[in-house]
């Protein structure tokens, strides 16, 4: 099998990349391990997707369906489901299906494998390991796809968006959610979800609070929980017992990089890319949550389209780049994607997150001489919200630094 572009992953990033690549004239293949396209959207039955991309509000399955229809319409685009990629070799991939192993040759590769949830082991959750401990995504799958309730009395650890959404879902399905515990002084979820998933249902959100110990032999019987200090040390004097039969973990997502053999950026836990979303490996492009964990699926779709466009241009020998420069950032910013940026034609998109809440400031892009290349006013932004900054490539002629400046 030979293609111009192969996309690994049939979630929102991969579908968008595949459609864009095909539209750009490249013979394209999407490889998906599930029996269906759509990825995690299929189990996100709540609404709120698509406001930015489609200017309309959809549920997850509806948003997925929009893209599945676009995929089906493309004549240049093939899809392989029930197929695992077991090895990447340059831009070729080894796939494993029920019929055995095979190699698919490609001129360019788009990595769109998404991310994984952090587990009880990842966060060194202390105490016993009875049944009744689920990640938020596992619980979501049980409830929304399989129609099963994971438990009746629930404590949610972590305030990631899936945890907040599951607190509401479990409440609506008849469970009692005792509390959401967040070890940090601020929540990691979107404010909209705090209001509509917790406050609407009077579910308490306890900040600077975590589980000290899981209690239970066969099934979870409860948790000892309490406050932590600035250095995240547990304050024993605050320890209390909360009976529950279920613990839902919503404690972060990590890019799914098992197949990737490249240098990993400790900030994003994924690979380094340039402004064409091209990795250190020639012809390999990266997008979506495998590159950095996004806040909104709309942003994933847009990033996927950019990767699909660039990968197909590359495969068809049409990708023209200028000179490459480094992009760094000040300490108020926790990371940028990309970390390398080109001069030349068109617009480069920089995505980043801030470390703490920032109000009424400017994001400023400076060149090596300290001159302002581009700036953008920011009314307010939170660490949980991804920021976007666009810069005209014709203005780039040296290494760049992204900073936050007061008014």
């Amino acid at each position: 099998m030979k293609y111009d572009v192969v996309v690994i992953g049939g979630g929102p990033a991969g579908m968008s990349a595949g459609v864009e690549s095909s539209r750009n004239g490249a013979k394209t293949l999407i490889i998906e391990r599930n029996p269906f396209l759509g990825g995690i959207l299929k189990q996100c039955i709540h609404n709120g997707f698509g406001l930015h991309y489609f200017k309309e509000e959809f549920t997850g399955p509806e948003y997925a369906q929009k893209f599945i229809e676009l995929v089906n319409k493309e004549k240049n685009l093939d899809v392989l489901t029930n197929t695992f990629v077991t090895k990447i070799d340059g831009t070729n991939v080894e796939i494993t299906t029920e019929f055995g192993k095979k190699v698919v040759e490609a001129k360019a590769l788009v990595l769109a494998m998404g991310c994984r949830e952090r587990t009880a082991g990842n966060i060194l959750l202390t105490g016993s390991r009875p049944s009744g401990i689920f990640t938020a995504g596992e619980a979501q799958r049980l409830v929304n796809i399989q129609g099963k309730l994971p438990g009746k009395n629930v404590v949610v650890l972590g305030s990631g968006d899936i945890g907040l959404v599951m607190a509401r879902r479990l409440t609506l399905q008849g469970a009692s959610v005792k509390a959401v515990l967040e070890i940090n002084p601020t929540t990691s979820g979107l404010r909209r979800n705090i209001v509509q998933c917790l406050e609407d249902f009077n579910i308490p959100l306890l900040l600077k609070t975590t589980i000290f110990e899981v209690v239970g032999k066969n099934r979870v019987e409860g948790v000892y929980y309490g406050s932590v200090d600035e250095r995240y040390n547990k304050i024993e004097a605050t320890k209390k017992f909360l009976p529950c039969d279920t613990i839902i973990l919503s404690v972060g997502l990590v890019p799914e990089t098992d197949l990737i053999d490249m240098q990993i950026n400790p900030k994003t836990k994924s690979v380094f890319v340039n402004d064409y979303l091209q990795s250190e490996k020639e012809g390999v492009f990266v997008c979506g949550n495998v590159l950095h964990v996004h806040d909104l699926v709309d942003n994933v779709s847009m990033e996927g389209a950019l990767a699909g466009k660039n990968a197909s241009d590359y495969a068809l020998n049409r990708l023209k780049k200028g000179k490459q420069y480094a992009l760094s950032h000040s300490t108020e910013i926790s990371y940028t994607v990309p970390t390398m940026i080109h001069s030349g034609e068109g617009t480069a998109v920089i995505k980043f997150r801030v470390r703490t809440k920032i109000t009424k400031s400017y994001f400023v892009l400076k060149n090596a001489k300290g001159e302002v290349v581009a700036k953008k006013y920011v009314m307010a932004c939170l660490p949980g919200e991804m920021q976007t900054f666009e810069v005209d490539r014709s203005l780039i002629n040296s290494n760049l630094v992204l900073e936050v400046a007061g008014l």
Partner: protein
Amino acid sequence: MKKQTMMTCIMCPMGCQLVVDSSGKELKVSGNTCIRGENYAKEEMTSPKRIVTALVKTSFGVLPVKTTKPVPKSMIFDVVREVNKISLKTGKMGDVVIKNVLGLDADIVITGNKVDDRI
């Protein structure tokens, strides 16, 4: 008597802490930095509405559903209860399963097809 309600504005990332004073004839909003905050607070006080999503039982498992319009926040559990009463033989994305649920001027519509769940 002074009646005050606190809320966080969700119209933008500012997250203004709003205080709504409902002791007079008209609602008075403070803490907001723009008009959107005032409008949000007034709507949340007078007629907060939400799109409700739920799961409907079928002979082959559950399917996701939603209200086609936002319904009053106070009716969320009632709407879910109506959905829970139903058990469908068949159903696919786009099918209306309850017309004008509880007279709220919103339908309950299926939002997704059966997901192939063999893993």
